[in-house]
């Protein structure tokens, strides 16, 4: 177990290096002089040169990369051009909100998806299966930002039951656990949960119908085990894969929350990215993406290790 974990961590290191290269490159594939957004329009050539040296843009890419990487590893992701605050501070403040939203959405998606998947797998090819499969196709096909809009139209604009935007009353930027804040979370969380719901339903349905067709299930039934007992065996066999899919989906939602956060003005990393893009705030863009990608890589690592703990056959 420990050996597997260590080997898995070592295998992650080159990926992490690759991720940092991509994030570093983001600033350099961006058209135009990277200094342009901080320089005053009438800056003298002399000032330009001094700033270039100050920011290290006069050095080779390799040198710049190493410098940037060593700073990033110490938690210094540079300074936001738009706000003048440290990128790390900005990202860390936003990431909590996104994590909160994505976790709630993943749990909703997992519960509903497993429910649909189990029912569909147990009654394969019945009308119930067809309905559950239709719900799954809906989940993976619907443009979630549009679904968010439709929910706002119905529950905020028409019925007036739920707030349409923000994370709390009066544009509160920080999420807290109380009823008022909870009401702000309902619509974005439901919208976001539709994607993992569809994917988990599909996975669980395939798993359950596959497990039910195996001989050990017939054996269990032949030995007179109750249907509930058989069900528990099916759950135990389906759990590792289903949980792994759930973990990976959480990672996707963390990284993919930009569209939903834009629709609901949710003050998370997605909103941060959005403003970074439109203010051409490249350090902020770079930092946010690096942090989100790191989350995703680490989450995948945890999922892999947990999965091998639950199901020792997976260890390769």
């Amino acid at each position: 177990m420990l050996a597997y974990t260590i080997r898995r961590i070592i295998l992650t290191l080159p990926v992490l290096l690759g991720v940092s290269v991509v994030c570093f490159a983001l600033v350099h594939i961006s058209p135009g002089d990277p200094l342009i957004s901080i320089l005053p329009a009438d800056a003298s050539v002399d000032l330009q040169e001094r700033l270039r040296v100050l920011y290290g843009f006069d050095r080779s890419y390799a040198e710049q990369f190493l410098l940037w990487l060593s700073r990033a590893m110490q938690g210094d992701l540079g300074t936001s051009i738009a706000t003048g605050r440290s990128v790390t501070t900005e990202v860390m403040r936003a990431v909590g909100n996104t994590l909160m939203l994505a976790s709630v959405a993943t749990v909703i998606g997992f519960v509903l998806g497993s429910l649909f998947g189990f029912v569909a797998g147990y009654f394969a090819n019945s009308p119930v299966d067809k309905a559950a499969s239709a719900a799954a196709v809906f989940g993976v096909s619907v443009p979630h930002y549009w679904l968010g809009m439709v929910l706002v139209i119905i529950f905020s604009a028409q019925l007036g039951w739920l707030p349409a935007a923000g994370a709390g009353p009066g544009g509160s930027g920080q999420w807290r656990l109380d009823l008022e804040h909870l009401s702000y979370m309902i619509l974005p969380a439901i919208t976001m949960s539709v994607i993992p719901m569809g994917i988990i339903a599909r996975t669980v349905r395939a798993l359950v119908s596959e497990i039910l067709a195996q001989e050990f299930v017939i054996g269990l039934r032949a030995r007179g085990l109750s249907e509930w007992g058989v069900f528990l065996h099916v759950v135990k066999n389906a759990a590792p894969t289903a949980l792994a899919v759930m973990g990976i989906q959480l990672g996707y939602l963390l990284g993919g929350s930009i569209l939903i956060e834009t629709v609901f003005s949710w003050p998370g990393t997605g909103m941060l990215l959005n403003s970074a893009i439109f203010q051409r705030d490249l350090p902020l863009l770079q930092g946010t993406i690096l942090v989100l990608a790191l989350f995703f890589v680490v989450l995948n690592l945890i999922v892999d290790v947990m999965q091998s703990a639950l199901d020792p056959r997976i260890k390769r």
Partner: protein
Amino acid sequence: MADATIDLAPPAPIRSAGFWRNVGGRLRRDRTAMAAAFVLLLILLAAIFAPLIAPMDPLEGRLVNRLKPIGTEGHLLGTDELGRDMLSRLIWGGRLSLLMGVTPVVMAFVIGSAIGIVAGYAGGWTNTLIMRTIDVFYAFPSVLLAVALSGALGAGLGNALFSLTVVFIPPIARVAESVTTRLRSSDFIEAARASGAGALTIVRVHVLGNVLGPIFVYATSLIAVSMILASGLSFLGLGVRPPNPEWGLMLNTLRTAIYVQPWVAALPGVMIFMVSISFNLLADGLRSAMEVRQ
């Protein structure tokens, strides 16, 4: 006499033609898949013949006519925030939306298959190098990678297409690599190699035919994702620029109107949804017709 002995051309691939005919036959009996294909064909035809079908100019509107409801005289699906005819814009919007959704997958299909086949067929260090590089792109959730690239490159159709292509190359390359690796050690490839066929011939004659099927099915379902992502980029303001009609961008500009004409504002999303779900259903049908398992 001499002609008969020299003729070493590979025999015509009779079996593969039969295979595709079988798949076609099975697909035609699949009502859901056929309905999906029909919807897609309809939307595609409407987009191609937009100048003939659309009742009005998609770019011209009168502000006095802004945000008319669905069913207004002369504006069957209402008007948008600048008084432009929604029906015409939805029909015209199909052009850019379909282009943005399909092109990245087609490009990734070509590039990704090539990368995957090379990695799979070469094996060894070449494989390790290529596949570990691909793994790096897997470390980014697809939406994040698309937004990161097009955000850094700046808004615009070309940049959006490029970003989406980069997003879809790794998954396609992975499928192509795994199928090719499995094929490489199979008996009929061994036999071809033993009878002196070069690497290129083997790939062209034996590998491609076996690899392209599974990737094709996979790519069909990727188009569904690509439609949502591409329109999503436009929705964020990173894709097509106004005033051009594109479903994602229309959704974005109409967002302010949800308290005035909510159902008109929701219309472009219906189009994205229809195309996306049709591609998913078609891919499901293709998969079961080919009995390919993911």
